[in-house]
């Protein structure tokens, strides 16, 4: 399949797309604000995969290689928006969500995804790279051309934003359960 893609064989390219598109679409959704944006990233990402597949030397799995291309494509597409200053700055400490009313465990993957998609681009990217991809702040800072301090404060703000959203969901759940 890889050799076919290197040769530009359409059926090999389609097979590669069919094998990895679901997984990569799921990945792209975490970096984008909506489905349409995720599909644009997916499209550009696969075109890059076909363009650079000759460079894949077999080190690591093909999925990891494609995954990295998708992340790079997402970052490049979102780069202009990452320079924008976030509109919200959380200066006050938010109350902790009581465990018994925590909705984290109740939320589906899609609902968790929606929480992340509601974040501003810079919070979303830093949160996803640090929490999901496990990147260190130093690596994130280099990738996004920001300082390490900025990366840490963006992560803290992202967590607070999610916490705020969870808190409002928790309160709504608590109100609903009291009414029942």
């Amino acid at each position: 399949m890889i050799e076919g893609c290197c040769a530009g064989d359409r059926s090999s390219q389609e097979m590669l797309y069919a094998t990895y598109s679901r997984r990569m679409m799921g990945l792209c959704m975490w970096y984008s604000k909506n489905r349409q944006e995720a599909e644009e990233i997916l499209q550009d990402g696969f075109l890059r995969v076909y363009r650079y597949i000759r460079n894949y030397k077999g080190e690591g799995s093909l999925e990891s290689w494609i995954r990295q291309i998708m992340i790079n494509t997402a970052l490049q597409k979102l780069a202009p928006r990452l320079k924008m200053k976030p509109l919200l700055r959380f200066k006050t400490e938010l109350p902790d969500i009581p465990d018994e009313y925590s909705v984290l465990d109740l939320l589906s993957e899609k609902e968790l995804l929606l929480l992340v998609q509601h974040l501003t681009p810079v919070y979303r990217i830093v949160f996803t790279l640090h929490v999901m991809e496990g990147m260190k702040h130093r690596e994130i800072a280099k990738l996004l051309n920001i300082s390490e301090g900025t990366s840490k404060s963006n992560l803290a703000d992202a967590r607070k934003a999610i916490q705020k959203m969870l808190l409002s969901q928790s309160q709504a759940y608590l109100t609903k359960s009291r009414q029942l």
Partner: protein
Amino acid sequence: MRRLYDHMDNTFRKAYDQFETEPSANVWNNIRGHLDAMPQKKYRSGAITKGFIMLMIIGSAMVLYDVLNQTGNNKFLPPGNNIKSTFPSQPAMIAPVEKPIENLHHYLNPNTKNNSKISTDPSKYNIRENVDQLFNIHVNGYEIKHPKVFTTGTGNEMKQKFPLFTQRQIPATSDIPVSYNGFVPYWTVAGIVSNGYAAYKLDIDLPSNYQQMKQISQREKNELSYSAGVYVTYHFHKRFGIQTGLIYSNTQIQIDPQKIYAFDDPDGDVGFQYVTSSGYTFIRPKFSNSPTVGDSLNATEAKHSFKTVSLPLVLKYNNISEGKFSFHPGAGIIANYIISAGLETEVTDAFNRESVIVNKLKGTRNFYWSAYADVEFQYRLRPELSINFRPAVNYAISPITDNNIVETFPYSITAGIGLTYKF
């Protein structure tokens, strides 16, 4: 708080690893459409690269021909003799030859015939004055420099005046070796002005920018470029020299009228985005100083100028010619500093018109590398002064843009003319 965050991270991480969703059918259709529409990416084998390779091949062939031709020179020496002279401690002796010396007439009395055979009798020499200048004699293709001045006079007078002749007798026999085989390094300085054709090759990193790349390419038209510079060459070997210098280049590009739209700029404001092959800018005219995203203006025909100062590092080959013509192919790299990438245009709406001058576009690097090849054709006016004609090819090997929609690799084919001074 820490416990909450750990719990949060684990929950999100699990969702991230497991979440999959089917993209719409349009995605594959668009991908296939792009793959069918885009030409196969090849290594840049356009005319300019072919020209570059041709120059290299021609230059190498000239070098090889010249080197191979030199191996027969010793045949002019009497058998059994070696080339020994180590100028300047030993003055060169003129080899008795059977073949006429072709260039010696330049240094002899004009009445002397071109095909005079050289003689070891100094009284036969009536050599033209060359006061205060190094006196070059070309013998069998070797260049001999004499620190003394020859002047007209009989051989005996010359023996008295000049130690060169008095230190040793001019050999009367014909079986004395010699031909001179040393080399004294020298410098040349050339002032060249060039004019030619400049263009660029565009590349994109994101396939979704393909249409914009096409639009940029269609609306920009390169005009002639010109450059002027000083080249300094150190000839460390009779065949080779190393050249550097300072060159100023100016390329003008004409951009067709277009509609420009308001976008968010990286500083968080809104401005009318103008994109060129060298970079971009956001225009905020006074008559529309707080546009909203999506607003548009008309931009008239624009002039885009691109100016650089370059530092070449070129290896030159010296063809040793007995005639007045010589050629010197060279190849190397150039470090280019972009001193200006500017734009002049006018923006209009239904009621207003305003001139816009941008001195520095965004998304333009300060520096890029290019590969260079040329062939210098020289015509010697005097021993130290030549006029030269220099066709050259210059091709960027790193892009001039950074974070722009397109990656731009400028190239040029120029013809230059100038003077070279040797010292």
